[in-house]
């Protein structure tokens, strides 16, 4: 819980990493409490959710990025794909504090693998991670999160948001996992997902709902679930 200057460019503390063949400074992600992310920048960049900056010190510049490209065409693309991720790029020297609607923030380290995360749950990613969109099939439709999911690939850190602290569950061949679509936020690793019907019998009194069906994960990897069944933490707009 240092001051804003605590994690600044202190020289020896700046981590370096070999990426794309050259050495570059890497943004340091620190959690301040569980709902504020402090990112120490030393001239490098991070991608962050639009509007998530709550405070910064030092020199910082923000640039708007968007999913499907700039301008009207990009906007139409984003509408079509249902992918409403609009990200900004923060670049500079200093500490940037990010938070979004009091969501809990979970740090994820990527080592060459791929993270699949609902666009609205992505808070911040290392500038060196490749972002993309992947078709999620039916699951997106079921959870109301849209049919496309954001993917992050490469090595580096990312921060994802959840409504309440996420629980990280390991899936291995002998332990498949079933997850409520509304509680799912992200997964990484080599996982297959399928649908399974949950409540085997519905009373004629109720119209079903609840655990009507779940997503079943099989394979090898990690699944992030939130202690809430609201579909999107951040809402649509």
């Amino acid at each position, binding site marked *: 819980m240092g001051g804003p200057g605590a994690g600044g460019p202190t020289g020896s503390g700046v981590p370096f990493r070999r990426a794309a063949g050259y050495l570059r400074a890497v943004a340091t992600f620190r959690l301040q*409490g569980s709902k504020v992310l402090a990112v120490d920048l030393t001239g490098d960049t991070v991608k962050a959710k639009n509007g998530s900056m709550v405070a910064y010190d030092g020199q910082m510049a923000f640039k708007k990025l968007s999913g499907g490209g700039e301008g009207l065409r990009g906007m139409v693309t984003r509408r079509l794909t249902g992918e409403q991720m609009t990200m900004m790029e923060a670049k500079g020297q200093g500490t940037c504090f990010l938070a979004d609607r009091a969501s809990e923030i979970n740090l994820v380290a990527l080592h060459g693998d791929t993270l699949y995360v609902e666009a609205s749950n992505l808070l911040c990613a290392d500038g060196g991670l490749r972002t993309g969109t992947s078709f999620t099939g039916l699951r997106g439709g079921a959870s109301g999160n849209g049919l496309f999911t954001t993917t992050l690939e490469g090595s580096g850190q990312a921060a994802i948001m959840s409504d309440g602290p996420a629980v990280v569950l390991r899936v291995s061949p002998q332990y498949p996992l079933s997850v409520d679509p509304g509680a799912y936020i992200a997964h990484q690793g080599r996982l297959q997902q399928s649908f399974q019907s949950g409540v085997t019998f519905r009373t004629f009194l109720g119209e079903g709902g609840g655990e009507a069906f779940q997503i079943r994960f099989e394979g090898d990897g990690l699944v992030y679930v939130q202690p809430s069944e609201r579909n999107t933490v951040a809402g649509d707009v």
Partner: protein
Amino acid sequence: MPFREVNSKMVEATLTPGQRMFSQRGAMLAYRGEVTFTPNLTGGQGGVMSMIGRRVANEAAPLMTVEGSGTVMFGHGGHHIQVIELSGDTLCVEADRLLAFDGTLTQGTLFLGSQGGVMGMVRGQVTGQGLFTTTLQGHGAVAVMAHGGMIELPITPGRPVHVDPQAYVAHHGDVRNKLSTALGWRDMVGRGSGEAFQLELSGSGAVYVQASEEKL
């Protein structure tokens, strides 16, 4: 009287006869003993004119006076609560974030326009919280609410802190505020990045920032 933090979302205050405190209306969760809650016709201190002034200034925080002897638990909407102790200095806080405060504190309003000129007025417009901010001065404790908890960022000379006006909760100390823009006008049209306006705080003191851009 000091507030005891029961948990992150609840504080307990002990009242003794002759003491009084102010709290936001409807923020009492439970009480023990003989305690009365009176809605403030005057909206705090300073008489009716002051209240009307505050109404006009859109600084409408419905307050009630809490008097008697006993213990009272305060909380509101499941918001996180932070207790800030004042020892003679002034705290600037948006009125609707005040949960409860010591009756001994002097309440006032600060026209931010006078501090930041035209831009100060813009700040009020941006936060949508009026051009006036409530000030509390003296010795005592203030319980302030924030959406999703707060972090305290120290402000030291030569090291200004930039804050999203929506996430700004309160500040104290000898601090000047100024509105700055980090983006061009083009970016602000349309949804913008939300970072179009930033509140620059410089001087020496501390600013409280909440983990959310949501107003209360």
